[in-house]
């Protein structure tokens, strides 16, 4: 029988560290597929954050470094500036990128660092147990906002829109991981992000709207429904900036 699909070479042969129903596993898979497609396994460095995305260290069969909380864009800057032949993929969650790491992402973007940043946004601190993130929706429950986030905690921060205020970024897109069609779109966006880096175009930012069945206290199916009903209404998917289209 003809084998038409197998595990990407850029994916380690073991289970991911993700909870059942979490869409991060799919994300890891499409990134690994792209690394294979481009044939860049030996020259890729995955810069991982602190948070659930750090679990990617059990997934990628590439060079990698787990940076400090929020500082992945700075660590990646240090790597890419000194090893420009590497393809540096930065993966960060919303607690990491939009809270403690806000300065690092803003300035890496503002310098137009030649990086591909994948921003996993599930609206919550996953690894530490469901605390409120800067991306948590108003009314959404978290262990540090047990009655639901109120305005006193601020409003959901929209990173694509915020970064789109800067001059330097080359490519900014928000995708969602909730359906096969959206996943294909996400893969296309990440492909563009990687191509941009390999062509020396500069900073690419791909936000992937995701879920957290565990900390949203929902079944996987319910979490997808919640995403469609609430999250994706607050966070509009689409291309915010495409330097190649000008």
């Amino acid at each position, binding site marked *: 029988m003809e084998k038409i699909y197998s595990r990407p070479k850029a994916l380690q042969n073991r289970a991911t560290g993700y909870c059942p129903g979490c869409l991060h596993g799919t994300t890891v898979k499409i990134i690994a597929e792209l690394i294979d497609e481009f044939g860049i396994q030996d020259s890729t460095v995955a810069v991982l954050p602190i948070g659930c995305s750090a679990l990617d*260290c059990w997934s990628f069969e590439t*060079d990698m*470094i787990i940076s*400090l909380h929020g500082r992945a864009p*700075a*660590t990646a800057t240090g*790597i890419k500036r*000194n090893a420009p032949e590497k393809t540096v993929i930065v993966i960060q969650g919303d607690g990491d990128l939009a809270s403690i790491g806000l300065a*690092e992402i803003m300035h890496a973007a503002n310098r137009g660092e030649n990086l591909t940043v994948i921003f996993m946004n599930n609206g919550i601190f996953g690894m530490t147990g469901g605390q409120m993130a800067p991306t948590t929706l108003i009314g959404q429950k978290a262990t540090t906002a047990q009655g639901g986030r109120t305005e006193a905690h601020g409003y959901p921060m929209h990173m694509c829109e915020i970064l789109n205020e800067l001059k330097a970024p080359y490519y900014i897109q928000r995708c969602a991981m909730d359906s096969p069609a959206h996943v294909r779109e996400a893969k296309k966006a990440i492909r563009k992000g990687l191509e941009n880096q390999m062509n020396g175009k500069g900073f690419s930012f791909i936000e992937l709207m995701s879920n957290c069945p565990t900390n949203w206290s929902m079944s996987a199916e319910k979490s997808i429904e919640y995403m469609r009903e609430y999250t994706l209404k607050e966070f509009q998917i689409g291309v915010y900036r495409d330097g190649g289209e000008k």
Partner: protein
Amino acid sequence: MSKLFIKGNEAIAEAAVRGGCRFFAGYPITPQNEIPEYMSRRLPEVGGVFVQGESELASINMIYGAAYAGVSSLTSSSGPGLSLMAEGISSLAASGFPAVLVNMMRGGPGTGAIQGAQMDYMQATRGGGHGGYRMPVLAPGSVQEAVDLVYEAFDIAWKYMTPVLVVADGYIGSVMEAVELPPMKESKRKEFPLYTTVHLNPENPHRRSSCTMITNEVDHEEWNKVQAAKYEKMAEELVRCEEFMMEDAEYVMVAYGTSARVARNAVISLREQGIKAGLIRPILIWPYPYEALRKLDPAKVKNIFCLELSIPAQMVEDVRFGVYDRIPVTTYGRSAGLTFSEEDVEELVKKTIEGGEK
């Protein structure tokens, strides 16, 4: 070799470039600003990279990335900046990454003062960051020695695979002196093997996987043991101090950096007045030259003076650890950007002699 009349901070920057530094990331803070300023124009000339970080947090993490990439890198700051970098320094140490850090010390604690001081002794020698790591701490006493030690710091960093801290009081950064610069070293990127690859991707040890959180407890402890053995080796091999007029000394000063320059002049002056003074000057403050103190004979040495540009005294803890209550120890210092003179030191010694002979 010809001599160059140059300001301390610029001399440090040039010495780093000659020692192989090809990446600098840093954030402005007084009194070290000439270092990044110099690096911003100098590094591109030698194919290096300068990035002005958006903060000390970003800067130390850029260094973290540069070290991972295998480049000799430098950051510089002053006390408050080093405090912000603490997590990153701890992680450099935890990862076994080579890098050189300069703390051009100013008054503290808190925002403190922008003038030179020696207020970060504890921070420098006791880790500064979390987790109980050790790193060599070089404490130059002149611009020439700052040049020599910064140059050597890169060799130490690569030899032991560790961050190396150079602490100088702000005066050393700000004075101009004639120095001889060492020759330019060749500098190549070197992708060194990583311990944590064994843990993260054991089946593919050629992948460079780096992480300071090792989730397997046994692996983690094994790495801690490897690191502890390294700290012991450094403690054995890197001790360095200068002993000045110590053969027959009865009144022994212990001081480093600019304090030691003042103390040295006081020793000379006291000797001229018939008082047998001497000086022990640690050149590294970690590892500390305890032996120089342990070997002091209580029958001969009447008093030890621990001199620092710091109130409260900090180095005295190491001095007492070496002396172990066998000889009286007097602490003296100024702080907040104020200094003491050789006359102040002479007066201190003479008062002690008078008091002791009553």
